């Protein structure tokens, strides 16, 4: 079993995503909000990582979630607060979307897993003994 057999083509090439749930205005509003949660810094922000599309897709697969989210979005005063149910819902979806995106996972967090290694060294730090 060689490494070559484990080189799979990157199928993440951006396909044009057609919004399933949000209107154009809602997409814009959600993009603004998710960027307030995870803004662009020296690494991409949430909307750079297509989090609004991630949320749209998720809502399209779950009617109850969709209803809850859209009702929350309509009533939302635009100020994110810890303890506010809609802020919590939006933050959860943003975390799920951003930190599983290529931008969030590799550029921001530095994840470089799910690959082919011939050995696993584990912790090599003497001070962790």
């Amino acid at each position, binding site marked *: *079993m060689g490494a070559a057999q*484990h080189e*799979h083509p*990157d*199928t*993440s*090439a951006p*396909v044009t995503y057609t919004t399933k749930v949000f209107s154009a205005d809602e997409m814009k509003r959600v993009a603004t909000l998710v960027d*307030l*949660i*995870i*803004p662009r*810094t020296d690494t991409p922000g949430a909307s750079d990582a297509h989090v609004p599309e*991630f949320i749209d*897709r998720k809502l399209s697969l779950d009617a109850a979630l969709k209803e809850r989210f859209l009702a929350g979005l309509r009533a939302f005063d635009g100020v*994110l607060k*810890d303890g506010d149910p809609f*802020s*919590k819902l939006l*933050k*959860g979806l943003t*975390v*799920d979307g951003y*930190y*599983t*995106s*290529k931008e*969030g*996972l590799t550029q*921001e*967090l*530095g*994840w*470089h*897993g*799910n*690959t*082919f*290694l*011939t*050995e*696993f*060294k*584990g*912790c090599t*730090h003497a*001070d*962790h*003994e």
Partner: protein
Amino acid sequence: MQTTNDVIVIGSGASGGMAAWNLTRQGVDVLLLDAGTRFSRAKFWTHVKPWEWNARVDKGERPPQFYLDTKEQPYDTPRGQPFDLVRVWGRGGKTNVWGRVALRYSDVDFAGPEKDGWEIPWPIRYRDIKPYYDRVDQFIGVCGGTDDQDSLPGSPYMLPAAAPRCGEKLLQKAGKSIGVSIVAGRRAVLTKPLNGHPACHYCGACGRGCDVGAFFNSSDYLIEPAMQTGKLRVMDNAVVARVLVNDEGKANGVQYFDRVTGEEHTLKARIVIVAASCIDSTRILLNSKSHAHPNGIGNSSDVVGRYLSEQIRFHMYGFLPQLIGAPTQNDDGIGGEHIYMPRFNHRGAKREYLRGFGAQFWGSGAQADAGFAKALPGFGVDFKTAVKKRYPALVALHPYGEVLPRAENRVTVDEKHVDRYGVPVARIEYKIGENERKMAAEMYDTAEQILRAAKAEIVPFERGHLDVAGSAIHEHGTCRMGADQKRSALNGFCQMHDVPNVFVVDGAAFTTASEKNPTLTILALAWRATDYLAAEMKAGRV
């Protein structure tokens, strides 16, 4: 004239695969009925990155559908008393996606009921099963350390242990400082090539099925070699409904439905081995009603369906100060934890509850997501920075505790609720009691003490919260073995007391659940049971 099969095995998971493999290699002809089909390793999504997943789905591709949809096969639970039942119908069953934790039971487990007097004793002891654990370790490949404790017997046949990650090393050190032993994980993952199977390539995505077969799965390790003997025939999409009997109440075949066409068929057999996984096996037995067995086959004791024992479990998370802000490492390893906390509460002061708990640690270190971030406060740059700093520092504790066998925790079948073939579905009634709640308190204390000793920043938790029943996916006990024929359904060789030509070799056969993951013990018990069966067949006794 329909031919009569020597042995029919129902189910292709750990227990059915072992039964088929061990009998065929001893010259016995076996027909194995699988409720699904073979999962093709070439089509596993083992190396699909998280962000590639949706793009593939958009193109109309699908990952392998391991898990049985309850829309196809429902089951009942009482209102407000959920039980999450996870089933994989298809070659290898749950071993395609199992957690690979491979722990030996000890006499702390086997002799536990005698010691505390709760329910019936196991009919076997560690010495009875030890030779089979030795064989299973060598056959499937289990990596681990050289540790050996009264609650977790060692094995001379371990493959090299997976090196601990930074967080795991620090937890071991923290455990040591408070007298809690945290040992090398014992996992059925090949850290070296073994018996023609390749070594692990440390991609960490075992839960999506291993694309090279570097951890034990029943399909590649047992069923394929068994087919090469020419003695095994496998029938796909055969959903068994009942074990059939003759006028004397002896099994003489099975009734099954074709999962594709829905057609009903019967097959004749001299011996039937039930290995459909605890709940589905129990459903088959209870639905196998006849004049001789009005209460379900082999159930004159009325224990079949009762004493369902799963395990209690919860999760606690923390961030280790030495690792906050550290560079991100590839922490995939063999997928899941490289360490394990064996049971220790049988030592020292007598507890206010019976039985015990251990702990697993999967999800420590850099993961392919950052779900923990939901528990961190704030928004914006500060939040983003806080997540990044904690990402390499995450450690996770998952204590598992034994649930006592109780008659009222049971599986029944209801003639009024039938599946698409007209066969009654299983109804699962299951509750934990005061004993488990007391144990959970010490489980919470222990997890918290380990994290405190590690000086971890502990993620806020709700003390006493437990996962939904069934979440550990460790169902046991509904067709238990025992010496007393009035209080058990099977003898120590998984043979029915009432019907000597029926064997039940999966988790249903366990007398108690223990705190441990059952698969290694299922394999050892099924190997032992089918050695006994092969000898009985040779002697002409069954």
